Structure formats: C-alpha cells, structure tokens
C-alpha cells in the first residue's frame, strides 16, 4: 500500500509518501511523477511515513532524479534509518540529495 499526497506551489512540488514503495506500488509513484514533473523547478519527496523501499522504488527515484537534474533540483526529506541503509548499500546516497 502506498499513499501519495501532492502539493504544488510556484513550480515547487512536494510528494509525501506513506506506506511501501515496492514492485506493486512503484508504478503508481512513477505515474504521479510523470504527471507532476513537467514545469517543476524543485521536487521534494517527503519520506516521513515511508517504511519500505525495494529496487522497483529505487528505479523510479533514479529516473525522477535524472529528469530533475535537467530542469531543476530534487531532494528527499525525513528518510528513516532503514530506508537510508538501502540508499547506502546501493550508492544512492551519492546520487540523491537527502536532507
């Protein structure tokens, strides 16, 4: 289960994620990112309520990052320790901006 809450103001968007970002839910985030990203200069992903991430989720983050590198910036906030460890072992700490 994944709940995504979206807010956009002056070209700055925030997606708050709640639940699990896995094989089944990653396509939902991918769709939301695709719909939201055009015209954004800054994208924030709030991970405060995200408990779980697998490689399917990482792939969506990677492609969002690649896109935002072209048009502005992207950052992740409130990443919990278990999710952070996944970013560490996969080298994602170096390609994502984790606030």
């Amino acid at each position, binding site marked *: 289960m994944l709940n995504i809450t979206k807010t956009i103001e002056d070209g700055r968007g925030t997606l708050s994620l709640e639940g699990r970002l*896995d*094989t*089944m839910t990653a396509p939902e985030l991918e769709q939301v990112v695709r719909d939201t990203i055009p015209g954004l200069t800054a994208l924030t992903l709030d991970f405060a309520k995200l*408990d*779980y*991430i*697998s*490689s*399917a989720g*990482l*792939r969506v983050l*990677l*492609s969002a*990052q*690649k896109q935002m*590198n072209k048009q502005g910036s992207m950052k992740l906030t409130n990443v919990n*320790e*278990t999710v952070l*460890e*996944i970013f560490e*072992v*996969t*080298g994602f700490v*170096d*390609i994502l901006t984790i606030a």
Partner: protein
Amino acid sequence: MIIPIKGRIDSTNAAQVEQELQAQIAGQTDLVLDAQALDYISSAGLRVILRIRKEHPELRIVGVNSDVYEILDMTGFTEMMPVEKAYRVVSVDGAEEIGRGANGTIYRIDKDNVVKVYNNPEALADIQHEREVAKLALILGIPTAISYDVVKVGDSYGSVFELLNARSFAKILAREPEKLDWCVEEFVKMLKLIHSTEVPAGKLPDMRETALGWAKYMKDYLPEEAGEKLAALVAAIPHDDHMLHGDYHTKNLELQNDEVLLIDMDTLAVGHPIFELASMYNSFIGFSELDHDIILKFQGFDWQLATTFWRKSLAAYLGTNCPTKLREVEDKARILGYTRLIRRAIRRKGLETETGRAEIAHWKSELLELLDKTDTLLFDKNELKIEAVPENLEELLAFLGERLEATDCAPKARMQLEVAVEEIFVNIASYAYSPEIGKATVRVEVSDDPLCVTITFIDHGVPYDPLAKEDPDVTLSAEERGIGGLGIFMTKQLMDDVVYEYKDGKNILRIKKSI
C-alpha cells in the same frame, strides 16, 4: 440363543434343570445362559454347565451376580469360559445428550456423572479398549476422564465417567458464539498437545495402516488411475509415533470448571496430523456439504459457524492466515476426508438411496478433482508453494512476517529480509517461467542460537543463476547508472549469505541472515 437360569441349582434340582435346558437348546447355536435371577449354584449345578459346554463350546454365562461370580471364580469357571458379571442398570430416558462419536453417545445421568452408551451391543471389548487408551493418554499428559464403572443401558453397555459441571465446546459455541475466538484457541491448544505427544510403539493403532485399507477399498469405486494415485499418496505418508485423537470435534472437548478435558478416547491412534485434519474437516464441513442442516443436528451450531470455526482452527494450528497455505493443507485433508466419507456411505448402503447417491457423487467428483492436482499429502507449515506472480508478493511477505513473529527480529532486519524476498520472488516471476506462469516454493526456517533466518526459493523454471551477473557499479553518477541488477545486488549486500544451485531440474536459491 439366550436362556435364563434362575433360583438355586444344587443336587436337589440339578437333574431336572439339566433336562429342561437340554430340551430348550437342542439344535441351537450361540448359546448364552442369562444368570440375572440365579442366586446360588452348587457343584452339581456346575457339572450340568460343564456337560452343556461339551456340546456347545461357545457357551457364555452373562448377568452373573457377585455371589455367584465368586463361586464361578473360585472353581476356575471364569478362566475356562466367558463369564460376565451383572452390571448396574442405568436409564438414559430423558437424559441430556452431551456428546456423540463414532462408536457411541454420551449422556449426562446426574449432576456429576455421564455415561457413554456404545452403539455396538457387544461392546465390552470396546469399553475395555477405551479404558486402556484413556489411561495411556492420561499418563502421557493428556487431560481426560477415565471411566470407573461399566453399566447396562437397555440392550447396550455403557461406561460411566465423572464429569462435574462440564459443558462441551459445541454447547458453548451454540449458546455463546461471542466466545468463538477463545474456543478456537483452547481447541487448537489441545490439538497441538495431542499431536506433540509421542506414544510408545505398539500401544495404539497406526492410522496409516487404517488409511491404506480405505484406499484399497476405494479402488473398486474410482477410475483405475485415481485409485492408484490415492493409494500411492497414502503409502507415501511416513509412519509417525505421535498421537491422534481420531474424532476431534467440539463435542469431544469439555470445559470442566476451568479445565479443558478431552473425551471419547476410543478412536485414539498414532500417525501424521493430516489424518486428524481430515477427520476434523469431515466433522465441521464434509458431512454437511450438501445438507447444511446436518451440522446443526450434530453440533448444535449452524453451518456458517462451523465453517468459521474450522477455518480459524486450521489457521491457528498452522500459525498462518495465508490463504494459499490454508487451501493447500485443507485440500490435502479433503482427499482423506472424502475418501473416508465415500467409503462410509457405501458401507452404509448409500448407493441404494437417492440422497446417498447424490452425496457419494458429490464427494467423488471433489475427490477426483483434488487427486488430479495433488502430489503429496504431507505439509510443512514453514513452506509456501505459490504462483510466481508479482500480485502474490503481499501474501508471501505476510507469510514471512508470521514466521518471524515469534522471534525477536528487529524492524530493520525484517525489512531487509522483506527486500531480499521481494527481489528474488519478482526475479522468479519475471524470468523463470516467462511467458508462462509457474510456481515457486518458499521455505522459511528460523534457527536459534544465534538467531538466524534461512529462506530457500525453489522453482522449476529455466536454469538461471542470478548471482552470475556482474554487480552494478554503485559509484556512477545518476546519468551514468542503468536500472538493472540492483535487486540481486541489494540482496547480496543485505544478507549474510546467498547461495545458488541448480539441482534435479530446480533452481534453488538460499539466503541467510543472522538477526
């Protein structure tokens, strides 16, 4: 033929008694002397009996009062021929029926006592058997009641038990359905106790032997191939020395004050638990599948409650709510359950009535369908065989969670195990059978000291070693990084050990993590 003998038989009337008896028994067989009204017998009378016995070696004396029994015992007659004592006569007219089993019915005869009346009128051997097995069970740690007296009830025999202020679980469920979960918990606790009790060799009948007999019987009523498969499935169940109750349902579990007691012990046996689950399935579901009123008459609660009780009990017994796992074990139980129901119905002339034929046809069609898709009657509660499709991931992870529940697994380690399971399962779903769909078997083992989780994945798909693939370069920038290979790489990083082998046509991947 039963002939009464009465009053006193001694030297004054022995000749006359003998003459009368000889006149009655000429040409008769299966001779029984009913001594209920016999007050005294002297040696002259005993000689008459000896002479009759010469021509009728099957002769028995029944209903012997204690004075006469003492004479027969002193003179060696009780060893030489069957002599049955007179039994206290008990009436069950108007008595409350509190239990009903395969071999008899249990009535409450007063506040503190119940009597089990046996269906078979020649029940003395059965009573003796039940008494012995109940004693055995008690010694092995099963809380049960042991009969203290044998009585005569009409033409049958009964054994009397003390059962103070007790209520069956069937009655509790019927009257207080809100106690369902508590009943399930106690019912399963007792079931696990029974199944964890090891029985010394040779003390109880082997259920496997009995079931081999059913399978043999069924060969005449099933298509050849199905009959052979059934026999092979039963034969493949290994011998097991653990106890089975044999007729475990809610009328055979009593609550006495705060103590839960198991009763109706005559079906006690040893064997694999699938035999027990089969008989439980029949009690709650199988018998009533076509006519839902049967369960109401039998247990006093309705079909819906029976179904719920069975499902919850099975889930608690296996320690899982995973629908695939529950269906797997239930289907195995149903194979033996239907086998038993069909055999029973045919032996009770079910093929001669319309209802009987409908029931047999229904059970048979279910049985044939199950036989077609089953390759073993064994089950392992730590193993889940499931279709390898991403949609089943949630169910698989829930199953993993249940297996980890009893451990002190920290949330972080649990999430890492979940990630590894997801990556491998999705890998199998994507590649093993593509474009077809196949099954994966996932086995979760938790070992103590040090606490360690081992998860094994087995599929029959194309040989594929996910570990052979080169690790992605995790130092590259976002632009340079591809999207492949991350899942298996993460699994290797998060687990202590990941091993692959291809063996007997199977991909076997094993991951291990200390927690």
